[in-house]
């Protein structure tokens, strides 16, 4: 089944200078391998295109089911220079919740927010 990432993982963003880091953490260890395989640094950068202007590096901590995406050139020049209303990029992590993933049907019960699930 194809689902939005919001059913598979949670996320938080933080700022340092003009770099945003966005952690993406699976809700369940059974879901994590599918997340790790499909949400590569390249796909992440493409999914944030128009906002992230620099390189994206991905760091993984498998036993915590967690990945950390470090996106350079994501904050309009930095918190104090940015013209974006959300100049810290606190809401940037929400974007990745819309990324689409393929998950085996038999893992449906592991997903979060089932009442929001479209299929």
């Amino acid at each position: 089944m194809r689902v939005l990432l919001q059913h598979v993982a949670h996320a938080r963003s933080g700022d340092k200078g003009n770099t945003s880091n966005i952690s993406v953490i699976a809700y369940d260890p059974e879901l994590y391998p599918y997340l790790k395989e499909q949400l590569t640094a390249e796909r992440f950068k493409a999914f944030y295109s128009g906002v992230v202007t620099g390189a994206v590096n991905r760091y993984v901590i498998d036993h915590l089911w967690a990945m950390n995406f470090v996106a350079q050139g994501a904050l309009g020049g930095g918190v104090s220079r940015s013209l974006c209303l959300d100049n810290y990029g606190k809401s940037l992590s929400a974007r990745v919740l819309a990324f689409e993933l393929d998950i085996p049907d038999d893992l449906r019960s592991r997903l979060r927010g089932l009442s929001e699930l479209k299929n």
Partner: protein
Amino acid sequence: MKPRIRVGAGSAWWGDRIEPAALNAKQGNLDYLCFETMAEATISAAQVRARRDPTFPGYDTYLDDRMQAVLPACLERGTKIISNQGWINPEGAAQRIVHWLREFGARGVKVAAISGSLITERALELTDTILENGKPTSSLRENLVSAEVYLGAEPIVAALQQGANIVVSGRVADPSIFMAPMMFEFGWDALDHMRLGRGNGIGHLMECGAQVTGGYFADPGFKDVPDPWNFAFPIAEVEPDGNATLSKVAGTGGAINLMTVKEQLLYEVHDPANYITPDVVVDFTTAQLEQAGPDRVRVTNLSGKPRTPTLKVSIGCTEGFIGEDMFFYAGPGALRRAQLAKKILEERFKIVKLQAEEVRIDFLGLNAIHGAMSPQNQPEPYEIAVRVAARCKTREEAVKVGREVDGMAVSGIGMTGKRVPHQDRTREIIGVWSSLVPREKIKPTIQFFES
């Protein structure tokens, strides 16, 4: 040696709530209460303000509120306080704290002020290269407002060793504020990178306060949090080996679970195996997390690597001004009117010859937050705010943004909602750059005051 110490958070930034600090002081049974009150630009902003406003004392503007809220309970319990509320005037902050101690009838309480992080005058001779762009730091000479080194835990430990009950500092790396009590109580050596890695890692989990107890977390139906209007700040019960359990005062809202801890573990971290602090390089990738009870998470096996030979320097520079304002549309056709308004502003900025490095006109409700990555072909919202911002070299140029929005009142288009211009619609930009300074060039000083 104590078998464990209880270290609580009192604030995660300047504007943080004060009740949870008072609650930690009263009910946290704390050995230490730690306050973090700075953002990247806090010191530079304080320098700018001090230049213009001679009455500004140069320390946390909420120092009085915070100290009044926590001092009585801390004095009663014997809780020591570690705080970076000194900003650009740690001595002044210490003297003000002494004032409050006397008000509360406490005599003989020692308050230490730690200075030495401010290196504005020496910054260009002590540093070489701007980390962000590789240019020489001397290129910042004209606009430099302030430069400060991120100090580590060592001067705080020294103050505690000399009998301080309260330590107030200028810029100290956030996790170090929380680790200093661990080093002092457990006798950790400043070069013991395994223990310091653990202690700094725990400090990192604590320094954003409620962000590990359920704040910046809730998402209804996905990540539900009980009573999110009543968060507590975290408490770390730390053992001599640096392993710790995170908890909070019972009966409060929020949650401490594996999800809140993992999110905070990676917050503002780049390479999680190499998180550079003044004291140690933390490795978060070895962490073991375990739900040890309701709202209790045990954090073990964090690790560390030897500290770097340099300390980070933050250099604040004046870089111009941002002008910003907004106005509103609603009802059928809100979007078409907003689009015409955008066109009018673009033409007006040409007519008044706005000199700007960047101009941004957003439709709040459609694309103001996620900008160019917002989905196309969204349904038209019922309400839209047109929000315009421009970054300019001078205030005179930035003022034009608000003045052109003023013009939208009677010279704009139909059914434009607008605020009365009751506030300053320009703000100064203090850009922050980073560099490195050799560790041995920085000599913090400690001054003691007594109530």
